[in-house]
Each structure stands twice: as structure tokens, then as C-alpha cells.
């Protein structure tokens, strides 16, 4: 669980901690379960409602029934979305763009973060502050200039434009997370390797990266989520290229000025949730340690 090298020690400490000090009486345990169950229901209920809309025949967004599975449930909406729309194409495009974005983003931010973590070079603090500052730029503000830039560079309507834009926009957050994480890895480890004749890059590759798996997974996950869910950038950068539309653009087409095909919209929503949720669950064991280790130094 812990990031530092003596993780086995910590784990034991953990177990001791739980067994010895924090055993609960059955009544308290029941209360804890109750609280967690209620919270869980609140957390998943809206998703269940989306599921419910997707199973309703017709475009009935609304219903006074609170049943999750309607009595006249049908999978027709899923069928229509998959067979009659280009939904699978959109999903595929999203997947291709998202995965390559996440990989490239991880490569660039892992090296940059290493520079920030291990060297004191001129402009280092300004650089970190600048990275934080980019998080404060309202996204809508950059749309027009980015579009103009893409037109000038011939990146409009290409995978390339979108992948580059996503990779770059994910760098600041990734660097922050990774830099914090690298800071917790003792320098002695690399220095030992350097004495053994390895150079800086090998040391980084052989020692730092493997130790940083949790943080790297978190960064991968964040980049993936950001690219997967983005609508604004895709809208301006893909514009006319319907053959490489990502799913948020496709779903937008299901919404009209006044009318929306809610059943299909919901069915598609459920399907796009699956990859992210799966990835989230898979990496959740890293999520906790990867995100917080940067802040914990004692």
C-alpha cells in the first residue's frame, strides 16, 4: 500500500493497527455498514436511473415510476444505437485517440517531472507555478485561438491534432502528481546505481520508473479520462471529419434543438461508461497510493 521501500513493514503495521486497536463491536460495525450502504446507494443511484431510461421503450426520459427496471423493459435502444448509428465507430475513434494520448502524455510528463524533481535549474519554481496556472485557464477561453492554430498547422480534422492537443493539455496535472511522487523516492537509490556505472537515464528507467508504477497508473488514468470525456476540444478540432468523430460528438447529434432521443442517449451513455469505469476499478488499487504519496513525506 505504501510507496516507500519498506512497504512490507508498513503493511504489517497496518494489520496490527486494525486488529489490535480498532476492533468494533457488532453494533458499531452495523452502523458503519449502514452508513456505507446509504452512501453507496446515493453514489450509484443516478447511474441506475440512466440505465432505467435506456431500457424504456420510446423516448420517455421521464416517468413517475421509481422502478429501475421498467415493466416494459427492452434492449431496443442499445440495438438501435449499435446497428443504426455509427456508435461503434465513435467508440473506436475515442479509444484509439484516448489510448495514444494517455501513452504519449505519460512519456512526456514522466521525464519532465523527473527534471523538476531532481534538478535545481533556473526557472524551476516559475515553471511549477506556470503548470499550476494552466489549470486555472477557463477552457472555453482557448478554443478560438487553438482552432486558428490547428487550421494554420493543417491539424484540423486529424487524429494527430487531437492527440497532440490532449497530450499537451494533460501535462501540467501529470507533472504535478509525478513530481510529488518522485520526491518521495530516496535519491540514494539512484546514486547507488550511478556509482555502479549507470548513467542518469538508465537510473531513471531502471529504478525510478518501476518504483513509480502507482503514480504512473494514476497519470495514465487521468489522461485517459480527460481525453475520453472531452467534448470542447474535439468539437473544434474534428469539425467536419465525421469519420473520426469521438463519442461525445456523436452523442451530441442525438440531441436536437428541442427534442432528444433520450432512450438512445441513455443507452449510449451506459456503454461509454463501461471502459472508464473498468479502467478505474482496475487501477483503483494504485489510485490511493499514487495520488497521495506526493504529499506524504513522513
Amino acid at each position, binding site marked *: 500500500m505504501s510507496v516507500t521501500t519498506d512497504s512490507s513493514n508498513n503493511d504489517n503495521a497496518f494489520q496490527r493497527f486494525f486488529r489490535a486497536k480498532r476492533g468494533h463491536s457488532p453494533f458499531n460495525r452495523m452502523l458503519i455498514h449502514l452508513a456505507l450502504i446509504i452512501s453507496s446507494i446515493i453514489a450509484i443511484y443516478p447511474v441506475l436511473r440512466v440505465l432505467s431510461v435506456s431500457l424504456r421503450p*420510446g*423516448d*420517455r*426520459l*421521464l*416517468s413517475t415510476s421509481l422502478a429501475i427496471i421498467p415493466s416494459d423493459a427492452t434492449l431496443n435502444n442499445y440495438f438501435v444505437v449499435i446497428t443504426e*448509428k455509427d456508435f461503434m465507430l465513435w467508440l473506436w475513434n475515442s479509444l484509439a485517440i484516448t489510448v495514444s494520448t494517455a*501513452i504519449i502524455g505519460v512519456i512526456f510528463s514522466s521525464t519532465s517531472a523527473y527534471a523538476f524533481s531532481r534538478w535545481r535549474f533556473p526557472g524551476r519554481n516559475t515553471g511549477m507555478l506556470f503548470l499550476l496556472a494552466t489549470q486555472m485557464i477557463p477552457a472555453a477561453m482557448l*478554443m*478560438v485561438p487553438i*482552432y*486558428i492554430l490547428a*487550421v*494554420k498547422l*493543417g*491539424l*484540423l*480534422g*486529424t*487524429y494527430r491534432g487531437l492527440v497532440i492537443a490532449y497530450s499537451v493539455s494533460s501535462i501540467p496535472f501529470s507533472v504535478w502528481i509525478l513530481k510529488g511522487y518522485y520526491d518521495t523516492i530516496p535519491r540514494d537509490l539512484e546514486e547507488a546505481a550511478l556509482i555502479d556505472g549507470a548513467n542518469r537515464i538508465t537510473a531513471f528507467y531502471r529504478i525510478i520508473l*518501476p518504483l513509480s*508504477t502507482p503514480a504512473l497508473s494514476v497519470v495514465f488514468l487521468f489522461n485517459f479520462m480527460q481525453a475520453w470525456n472531452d467534448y470542447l476540444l474535439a*468539437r*473544434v478540432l474534428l*469539425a*467536419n*471529419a*465525421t*469519420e*473520426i468523430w469521438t463519442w461525445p460528438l456523436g452523442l*451530441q*447529434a*442525438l*440531441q*436536437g*434543438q*428541442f*427534442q*432528444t*432521443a*433520450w432512450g*438512445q442517449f441513455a443507452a449510449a451513455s451506459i456503454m461509454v461508461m463501461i471502459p472508464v469505469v473498468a479502467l478505474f476499478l482496475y487501477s483503483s488499487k494504485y489510485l490511493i497510493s499514487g495520488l497521495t504519496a506526493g504529499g506524504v513525506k513522513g
Partner: protein
Amino acid sequence: MRKQILILSVLLLAVMMIAAQCGGGEAPAPEKEAPAPAAEEKAEEAAPAAEEMTITVWTKEGEADGGLPFLQSIADAYTAENPNVTLEIVNKDVEVLREDFQTAALAGNSPDLLFTVSDHAGPFTIAELIQPVEGLADLGQYVDSAVAAVKLDGKTWGVPASNGNHLMLLYNKDLVPEPPANTDELIAMAADLKGQDIIPLVFNQTEPFWMVPWLGGFGGSVFADDGVTPTLNTPEMAATLQFMHDIKFAEELIPAESDYDGSDTLFKEGKAAMIINGDWSVGGYTDTLGDKLGIARIPQVSATGNWPAPYTAGTFFMFPAELSGAKLDTAKDFVSFVTNEENQVKMVEELNRLPALKVALDDPAVTENDLLKGSADQMVVGVPMPTVLEMRCNWDSMKPELLAILSDTKAPEDAAAAMQTAADNCLLTLE
């Protein structure tokens, strides 16, 4: 585990590289979308008509009412006849289309044709983004009211493809055998319906688009005769607001809070007897209600004897200012193809919209369809929706005050005055 991931990613990368090599020739393909400004256009001007070309059409037509598939099918038919022309039909929601077209024009990268609502003519002409269509189509063959909807500064800025987009009264014949002729009848009918636990009337209470018909019924208009000066602080507006207030709080004709989807659902489920909605919704109601669906005019305002006047508009083709040469000719040809008699009749049958082409109005598909007859009858008393940019200020000023009236927090006279102030302030920001 880590090793596996590493190997996997290296493998993946290798596959991609190889694929990139093989597909190298294809890779830049999408760049044909990228701007190929002056040079390409010149080449096209000189080239013979059979040259390969791509026409990009941005449309507000979406999936929900079948508009997008319909346009796509027409485009496919056109491509079948003209194999050298590729038509890229791109859906953009109404507001998105406007924002994106402005952005694209800013970068000198407009699409080749727009298929959108009439009110976009206002902003687009002010920014000089579209060209007048006088020389591009024979406007005489289209219904006059449709052409009038996109007339600004003495020029016409769009070729109409459908006419209408107007509100009307749709009723459930099981619950209302005969539609009310005037508001007194409507109110009398309501008492009866409420007794059966049926909501008498629903409509989207959140948009002033649903209020302006009544304003017309009370003899008012949002602009003075010059068409650009807001006239919102008028006795007619106050009377309209009072009426909106009364049907909600005094007569309880309409539910407490109702947006588009809520009204739509209530009517589809048979819990509401009547709905005021646009021609785009007719198809959906025909699917759910079948023969039980009836269409009539929005009832006459008893106090004045006037018919409410919904805004009419329709869908229009607009030509970006930069379009010229062979592309313009092709775009022109495609527009006349979409609006020929055969395709207009097809549109009537598939989308239940009234055609913009005069001859199509005499087709049996229109004359023998009760629903369309009702829709056409409503349109007779409609007025073209203003397309000037100033209208945006009017919409935005009316909306919060309408909401205040419908939540019973403001007196009608105060709301009307507040509308006027807001509109006047808004006009200043348009400079």
C-alpha cells in the same frame, strides 16, 4: 505484471509503427479537410465540372426527429447522380452551429453550405459571413412567407427548404373531442378535464418562444415597425403576461413547473389533454398517439378576438461569403436538388414539415393529410420570426421575466418594464 505491460506496450508501439509504414500513403488523407485556400479554389474554377470535389454541409438537423437521416438520404441520392461530388453532412446543434461557423470563418475555414434556422441570418449578415442568394436560386418558386423570413436589408440570405417551425395546438382526441376555438372555451373545458384528473394544457414554460404567440393574440409585437427597436414595455405585453399568470395560478390550466421534456412526456402519456408544440414534434406524437392526435390553431384570445400569432420560420440553406467558383455552382445545384418537387414531397411524407416550394403545396401528400392541413391552417395566422440580431436581446430579456411571472414573483407591469430595460441595455453591448 509490470514486465507484461511493458512488453505489451512495446509490441503495440511496434505494430503501430509498422502499420504507419504500410498505411503511410493514406495517413495524410484527412488533411484534405484542412484549408487549401486560394490555390485550390482557383484550380477548381478553371477545371471542368466533373472534377472531384467535396462539399461540406453543416446542418442543425439531428437524429431525434429524423431530419439528419433524411438529409443524408437526399445527399446520397445526389451523389448517385453526380459521382464526382462527395457530400459531407455534419450535424451541429443549433447554437453550436452558430458558434462554430463564426469560429471557422475567423480562421478562414468555413464549410461550403449551411442548412439551418432562419434566425442565424441575423448574426451572419452582420459579421458578413454569408452571401445573398438572389442570383443563386429562383426565389419566385418558393412560398413568399418563407422567403420573407430571411429578408434583411432588402436582400434575401437563404433558400428555404421547409416552411413552418411554428407552434400549434396538438390535442388528444380521446380527451378533447373538439378543440377549443377561443380562450373562454379553453377555460371552460379545463374545469371538466381537471375533474378527470387530466392536465388541460401543457407547453414549454421556460422559453419565450411559447409566449410570443399570445403576445400576437393580444395585438402586440416585440419590435416597433422599424423591426429593430424593442417594444416590450407595452399594455399588450402586460396583458399577455397577466394571461400567462392567470392560466397558471387563477385557472390552473397548466402544471406548476414544466419544461419541454416534461410537457412532451405528459402529453405522450395521455396525462395532458392538449399541448402547444412545434411542427417538428408531430412525427413523434403520431407514433405514440396515432389517430388520436389532432391539430388545430392555438385558440383565439377572447378578450381581443385576435388569433395568437406563432412565429414561423423553417429551414434554410445559406451560402458562406467565401464560397465561389465550381464549389458554389455545385452547392447551388445541390440546393435546387433538395428543394425540387420530388424531394419536397418526400420531406413532407417523412418529416411532416410543410414544403417551401409552392407547387409541392398542391401535392396530395399535403392536401390529403389532416395533420398537415391543421399545421398549414395555423401558419396562416403566423408571423415570420424576426431574424435581426436585436432579436437575441429580446429573447434574453423576456426569458427571466417570463419565469418570474410563472413563479408568481413579479407583477406583469413591472416585468414588462424590466424586459424593456434589459433589452435596451443589451442593445448597447451589440456594438
